[in-house]
């Protein structure tokens, strides 16, 4: 671990603010400013929520389908299997996030160990 890994360059931090902090924070500040007059159940917000959920779903899929770093060393089938195994346990345990995550992780590690 060296200084470049710990601190990095200022350019990356500028990108963080321009592409991450401002586009994210703007919605909170709008909520703080115009909070009073919005109907929480309005149809526009239902659509917005659905799109936001689907974008998050796309992010989940992206990490599993086009895995970064060390996750790329796990074969495709094993990654999909781990998510599927976690999902089955999550549903069987009446939506326990903890049980689902543990099951997915155990499935992947066991599979990786078994494949050698």
């Amino acid at each position, binding site marked *: 671990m060296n200084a470049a890994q710990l601190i990095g360059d200022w350019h990356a931090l500028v990108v963080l603010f321009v592409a991450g902090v401002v586009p994210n924070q703007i919605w909170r500040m709008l909520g703080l400013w115009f909070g009073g007059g919005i109907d929480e159940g309005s149809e526009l917000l239902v659509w917005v929520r659905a799109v936001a*959920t689907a974008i998050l779903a796309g992010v989940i899929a992206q990490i599993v389908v086009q*895995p970064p770093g060390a996750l790329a060393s796990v074969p495709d089938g094993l990654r999909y299997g781990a998510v599927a195994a976690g999902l089955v346990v999550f549903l069987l345990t009446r939506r326990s996030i903890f049980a689902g995550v543990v099951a997915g992780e155990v499935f992947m590690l066991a599979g990786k160990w078994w494949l050698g």
Partner: protein
Amino acid sequence: MALPPLDSPQWQSSWRAFAWGVRSITQTILTLVLFATYLGIGALAHDTHFSLLWALCSTLFVWAGPAQIILITTLGSGATIIQSAIAVTVSAIRLFPMVVSVLPLMRTPTTKRRELFFAAHLTAVTLWVECHRFLPLVPRERRIAFVNGLGFGLVSVCLTANIVGYFLAANLTQALGAAILLLTPLSFLFSTARNSREVADVVALALGILLYPLAAKMNSGLDILVSGVAAGTIAYGVHWWREVRA
């Protein structure tokens, strides 16, 4: 740990209320889920070649797991700043209704807008859920201090998780490094599924996952936006078909 009764002298000082907020992070399983998610974000930042300081700044100033992951994965896979900013801002729209619905819980007739600044910044799905659970047990005039304490505690947990995840990714065997990276999609998938109460939410989640690989084949650089808007709009259509038309 139980919070003191509403008329307890414990609530007379704002600092005490802040401290009760910090302590309340031990009262929820979501703290553990956040820890796992931010462990994953730290590892993801390492494996996508961002610095540790960058990862910590993103947690401190963005403070929204999905936006941070979108930012890291899009920038890491070569998207432009504009493309990343669009994907982040669309994912962040959900913060608007959250802030709108959570701030009235802690407002008093004399509250000034700037007093709510940190509470608005700290609002994300975990805080939003916990506010609805904890705030009825906190006297109204101490709620802002309590929420600031709760948020401070959660941010501290997540910064710690980032550091641990970053160093683990640098030093672990490949299998364990992969396990840490897998924490993020698993914890997001299950916490989103748990929060999905309406059919539209479930359709958006399932279709969003299934459509992404198709959208990725188009290689437009906006894959996540394309699949997200398509899946979200179809999910809204299902909602409209069931609720509005009826």
